[in-house]
């Protein structure tokens, strides 16, 4: 009940005219980011973060989270119209969305995609509203060992659930931890890994890493692959929208299942990409018309879009309640909170009630605004894609430079961004996942602090991580997640041996 009262207070905050303006601006910028090749949600939020420095924290986070929703919506436009997934989680949407567009049903496909995204997000926000306060109050009892165990679980999930080779995921993650360790040690106040360079005193800012790895790296990949835009026209009118909406309730089961898959994958934190593939795969297997999937089935658009948006939204649950972001974009948002002096985690629900509930309320409103904006403005956004890459690429590069400079007003950071860009290009081409690297830069300090404090309390004994049922359970879950692929393989072998 108290949550409902808080939520209504949140709506009062989110419905202030300035915040609504910020919401619309965020959605529009987000869709543009989602549509443009080479700019993703995490990178877009990182570049635009400086724009929010002069705003009150609640408005700032509303704008940033709306950029996030917008980017999630934008990915669907390019997938359906151009067969170019703007984001990795939109890949599964191309399977049926693009064939639909080729059959002249682009309007139906886009309406289905946007509506499903909206349903997925709404389901996840409702889940956050109900669950996040409980998780947060539970997490208030956590000591350093429990905190470290939660970080351990989050990182192990990345290794176990990633589609990249596990040792590459570990290497990428450890690079992130090492970069986070550079500079002043927060416990002893001692300098480390700076090798006499004064520029490294403050360590590596994760925003610079995000802009370089995701923004510049992606531009370099696009330059290498060469890109030709050829897309159908997108005509969405009220008749098409209403007709599609009439048809969508038929797929309520697919929708509901995708919502659950998305929420689970978003929290764990496997992320939106595996969620969309898994949801598509299961829908294909279960649906009556499963063999038509890939030829332009509307259900093949509903399943991945619902799951991707539910996962993208659910990724904010651990960020708000535990301080562990479920996705790179959530990590950038977490970084934003830290910049404004807000400490994400259980205490946020106690100390910054207005902020948390304002944000949660804005998730509801932001998605409604998002749905309206994308349904009415698709032709404009699709037109952006027809601007040739040789005009868009330098503009994105300049925007990246501005974003990187604005973080600390330092041109050294801009150089660092370019170095990260080249590293991102090489790592991505060699199958190293970038998301765990970024998350490790963000969480490295906190994970290390929790680890060292736990060891200090136990006089150096690692037994502290198995000292009570709570911490042992989380650590064991972490180990299961770490060895998930091995366990799965063993189980399959055992089953085939028995059969």
């Amino acid at each position, binding site marked *: 009940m108290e949550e409902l009262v808080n939520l209504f207070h949140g709506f009062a905050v989110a419905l202030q005219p300035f915040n609504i303006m910020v919401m619309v601006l965020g959605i529009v910028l987000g869709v543009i980011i989602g549509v443009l090749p080479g700019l993703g949600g995490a990178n877009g939020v990182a570049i635009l973060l400086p724009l929010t420095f002069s705003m009150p924290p609640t408005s700032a986070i509303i704008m940033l989270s709306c950029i996030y929703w917008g980017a999630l919506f934008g990915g669907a436009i390019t997938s359906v119209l151009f067969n170019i997934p703007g984001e990795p989680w939109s890949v599964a949407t191309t399977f049926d969305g693009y064939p639909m567009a080729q059959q002249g049903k682009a309007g139906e496909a886009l309406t289905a995609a946007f509506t499903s995204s909206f349903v997925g997000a709404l389901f996840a926000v409702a889940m956050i509203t109900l669950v996040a306060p409980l998780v947060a109050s539970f997490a208030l009892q956590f000591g350093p060992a429990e905190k470290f165990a939660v970080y351990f679980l989050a990182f192990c999930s990345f290794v176990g659930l990633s589609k990249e080779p596990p*040792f590459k995921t570990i290497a990428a993650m450890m690079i992130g931890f090492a970069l986070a360790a550079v500079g002043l040690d927060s416990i002893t106040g001692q300098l480390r890994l700076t090798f006499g360079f004064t520029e490294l005193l403050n360590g590596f800012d994760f925003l610079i890493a995000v802009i370089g790895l995701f923004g510049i790296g992606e531009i370099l990949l696009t330059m*290498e692959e060469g890109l030709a835009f050829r897309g159908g026209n997108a005509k969405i009118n009220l008749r098409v929208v209403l007709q599609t909406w009439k048809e969508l309730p038929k797929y309520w089961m697919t929708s509901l299942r995708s919502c659950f898959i998305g929420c689970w994958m978003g929290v764990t934190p496997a992320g939106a990409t595996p969620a969309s593939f898994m949801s598509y795969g299961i829908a294909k297997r279960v649906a009556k018309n499963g063999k038509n999937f890939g030829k332009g089935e509307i259900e093949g658009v509903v399943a991945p879009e619902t799951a991707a948006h539910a996962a993208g939204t659910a990724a904010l649950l651990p960020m708000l309640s535990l301080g562990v972001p479920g996705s790179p974009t959530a990590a950038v948002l977490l970084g934003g909170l830290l910049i404004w002096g807000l400490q994400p985690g259980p205490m946020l629900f106690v100390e910054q009630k207005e902020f948390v509930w304002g944000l949660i309320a804005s998730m509801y409103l932001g998605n409604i605004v998002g749905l309206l904006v994308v349904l009415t403005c698709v032709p404009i956004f699709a037109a952006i894609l027809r601007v040739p890459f*040789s005009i868009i690429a330098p*503009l994105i590069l300049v925007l990246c430079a*501005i974003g990187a400079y604005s973080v600390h007003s330092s041109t050294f950071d801009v150089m660092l961004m370019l170095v990260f860009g080249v590293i991102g290009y090489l790592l991505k081409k060699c199958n190293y996942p970038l998301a765990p690297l970024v998350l490790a830069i963000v969480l490295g300090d906190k994970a290390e602090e929790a680890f060292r404090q736990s060891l200090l309390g136990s006089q150096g004994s690692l037994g502290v991580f198995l000292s009570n049922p709570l911490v042992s359970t989380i650590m064991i879950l972490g180990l299961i997640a770490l060895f998930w692929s091995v366990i799965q393989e063993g189980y399959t072998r055992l089953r085939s041996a028995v059969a």
Partner: protein
Amino acid sequence: MTTGSSSNTGPTHKLVEAGVTLLIALFGVIVIVGSLKAGINWGAEGPRAGFFPFYIGLFIVASSAINLWNGMREGNDRLFAEWGQLRQVLSVVIPTAIYVGAMPFIGLYVASIIFIAWFMRWLGKYRWLTVLAVAFGMPIVTYFIFERWFMVPLPKGPVEEWLGI
């Protein structure tokens, strides 16, 4: 856009991947050396500053060794990228490096105008009118959005000083 290359040669994936893995391992070694300097044992305040990064460094070196072993065992000889594609990538990296390097001396605005104009004219082969419109338009929009409305100062050079911006 096309890649503009007809050649089918280039560095193999195996070779580049081995190089990247060795660089990561080298980074791991640097982390280990730095951690040893900071102290990796137990101090008055518990584990010392180098304790955590030391083990991180060990993890990096160990996982790189396994990645190198796995990469070498793979029997494929596909290309990492064709030379033409790599040239295309370098045609962005090198000018961006010059752009970034020039920024502290001539400011962000002038550097951006030259960079955008060069990119559009050289890679995109646009008419000068279009080139100038975008090259000047973008920094002007940037100025208003970042500096005027959101009060985020951007680096300036002698031209901005002369203009009194």
